[in-house]
């Protein structure tokens, strides 16, 4: 068996068999699914707490707020504010609503309570009063205008508009796309790459430091070339990363599928189908459903096969190439130090472009065509992250090829440089290494 394969095998198995790996691999999807479930639960859960609010109505409005769902309003008539304040305790009122005499002019009311009033109560009360006043004003205008069917005509002016984004494909074919999805997808992928480069780059670095501090390095490089050891480690760790990523995707998907089948039986594919077929009926009153349908069509239109393949292909390529580029640098840093605390001085030039790339990526998600987007996705140190943000929006082929070519070229160059640092560094013990020293190592020949 080829020696590099033996090394890859060891690097892979020794990490995959670790308890921490198994724990992280199995707990993270449960955590993600848990957060997902919690968010859904939060959204679906109504405010079910029963509250009673005392109302001092000084205005001319008649019942501007009405008891609804779980909130009850008690009109206190002519009770003074001081007396009403006492009622907060004695009657267990949640709050006192004071509607001032001049509400039509001041456009404000006040809620008094001992606790901070929840946002739902606040906005609920506000919208009730607003609707009440608007209705009064509108009926007044309608009555004054004396026009037949004015009420219906006004209602018909309400027209929710959804903007479909349609992209021209390279072959001139029209494709439907969703800006939101492209943005979300691009940013999610670039963040995953960022995270994995960091997580697994550091693992490569730790592995190198481990071999150095264990003093096993010299035994091993008397059997294999330092370059073989370095590449074996990098590839082995990359496979650990891919394994973990795949496990996360599969497990998270499985948990969410099973979870939603158990807890939300209404939300299966059939009912979505039904909902969309209902909303297809021409009906003005179902504007909301129409918008939802448009959104759904966007999603479906976005995910045609070619688009998915280009994103998936781009993700895998930039994921691997970006990782290889950075992990070679991480390996070089690991070789230059004796323990992890010394890595800090060398970490900056590695983490700076990575973090920068993430910020550029955020900016690029808003404007994927600017010069920042262009340069960010061409320069090899930032391109794995920035290009991934751009790919869902569509990138000219020549830019993509240029970026990929430069990335591969710089990966080869950086690996070559890193290997030179590595093979000298691994044999240096107890020496405080500076950048100047590393520069010297680069000029040694074997």
């Amino acid at each position: 068996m080829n020696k590099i394969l033996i090394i890859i095998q060891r690097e892979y198995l020794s990490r995959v068999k670790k308890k921490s790996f198994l724990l992280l691999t199995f707990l993270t999807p449960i955590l993600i699914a848990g957060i997902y479930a919690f968010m859904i639960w939060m959204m679906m859960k109504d405010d079910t707490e029963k509250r009673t609010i005392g109302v001092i109505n000084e205005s001319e409005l008649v019942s501007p707020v009405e008891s609804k769902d779980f909130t009850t309003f008690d009109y206190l008539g002519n009770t003074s504010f001081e007396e009403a304040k006492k009622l907060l305790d004695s009657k267990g009122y949640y709050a006192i609503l004071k509607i001032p005499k001049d509400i039509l002019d001041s456009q404000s009311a006040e809620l008094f309570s001992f606790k901070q009033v929840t946002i739902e109560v606040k906005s609920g009360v506000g919208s009730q009063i607003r609707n009440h006043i608007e209705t009064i004003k509108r009926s007044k205008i309608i009555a004054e205008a004396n026009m037949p069917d004015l009420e219906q005509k006004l209602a018909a002016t309400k027209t929710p508009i959804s903007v479909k984004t349609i992209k021209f494909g390279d072959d001139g074919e029209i494709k439907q796309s969703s800006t939101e999805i492209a943005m979300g997808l691009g940013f999610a992928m670039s963040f995953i790459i960022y995270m994995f480069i960091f997580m697994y780059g550091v693992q490569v670095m730790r592995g190198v430091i481990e071999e150095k501090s264990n003093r096993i390095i010299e035994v091993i490089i008397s059997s294999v070339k330092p370059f073989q050891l370095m590449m074996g480690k990098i590839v082995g760790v990359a496979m650990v990363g891919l394994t973990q990523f795949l496990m996360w995707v599969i497990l998270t998907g499985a948990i969410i599928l099973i979870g939603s089948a158990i807890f939300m039986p209404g939300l299966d594919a059939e009912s979505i189908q039904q909902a969309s077929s209902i909303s297809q009926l021409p009906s003005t009153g179902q504007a909301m459903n129409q918008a939802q349908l448009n959104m759904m069509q966007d999603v479906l239109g976005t995910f045609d096969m070619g688009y998915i393949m280009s994103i998936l292909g781009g993700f895998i390529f930039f994921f691997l190439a970006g990782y290889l580029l950075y992990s070679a640098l991480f390996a070089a840093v690991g070789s230059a130090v004796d323990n992890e605390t010394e890595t800090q001085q060398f970490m900056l030039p590695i983490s700076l472009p990575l973090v920068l790339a993430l910020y550029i990526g955020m900016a690029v998600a808003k404007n994927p065509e600017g010069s920042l987007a262009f340069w960010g996705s061409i320069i090899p140190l930032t391109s794995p992250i920035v290009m991934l943000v751009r790919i869902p929006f569509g990138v000219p082929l020549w830019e993509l090829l240029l970026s990929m070519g430069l990335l591969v070229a710089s990966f080869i160059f950086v690996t070559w440089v890193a290997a030179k640092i590595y093979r000298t560094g691994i044999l240096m013990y107890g020496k405080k290494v500076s950048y100047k020293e590393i520069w010297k190592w680069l000029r040694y020949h074997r």
Partner: protein
Amino acid sequence: MAFFEAKNIVKQYAGHTALKGVSISVPEGSIFGLLGPNGAGKTTLIRIINQITGPDAGEVFFNGEPLKPEHVHHIGYLPEERGLYKKMKVGEQSIYLAQLKGMSKQDATAKLQAWFKKFDILEWWDKKVEELSKGMAQKIQFITTILHEPKLLIFDEPFSGFDPINANLLKSEILELRDKGCTIIFSTHNMGSVEEICDHIALIHKSEKVLDGSFEDIKKQYRTHTFNISFTGELETLKANLSDDIEILEHQSNKEFESLKLKLNNGTDSNQLLTQILPHVKVVSFNEIIPSMNDIFIRVVNEKNLSVDFE
């Protein structure tokens, strides 16, 4: 015949030269001592033999062929800085190291089991290295160094860090390997530690070889013709009867006997000395003072007008 040869090896690092044209020739089946103080260039030479680094100039021959990458399979190396993966199991790790030396998994497993049985450490197989004591780990390191039955074995500072029991075990195993035909290179700054087992030596000092040859020849060459003699009897009578070629270097006396350190000049041999002594006193002991490697080293360095700085 030389099993291993290095000719005019030069190795430079930025700022200093680690080896200035060093040549060594290691006879087949010998135990070769590469001696010299720390920083003399021994480890650099050893790393060149192991192809960890390459020489800037000079040639290296292994069994008559120019050194090639495949030769690492026939070399066993126990470096000065030695260790094992702490989190890995002993058996697994030994197999891994053997595989890197080109052995198949089956072959490595079978041979390892045999060695583990020999050292009576079979129960360590599934233990992690971090659970082992230092002495236990040293045994594993030794086994993994020799498992692939290398023709050339290299030990860098082999006895530093070894406890006396393991050091003895190491010594006897090494002699056994030599008897089986292995060629062995020892590198150490502790010259006394290898004196008793080396057949050949080379002295390295400040990146240069200052002396080499068979151990016997060197000892002969650096004889000082000095003898220690202890006796009972009259010191003055003896002194009066010694010829001019015999020089008294030192005199000591205790309750039981007198001791003299004598130097024989102008080709006087030990028999001539004894014939002069025997009629006058009763000899208790008589022996030649053989210079230690350390003494020889200092002498060589002084003769060559080099400064000595031991670390």
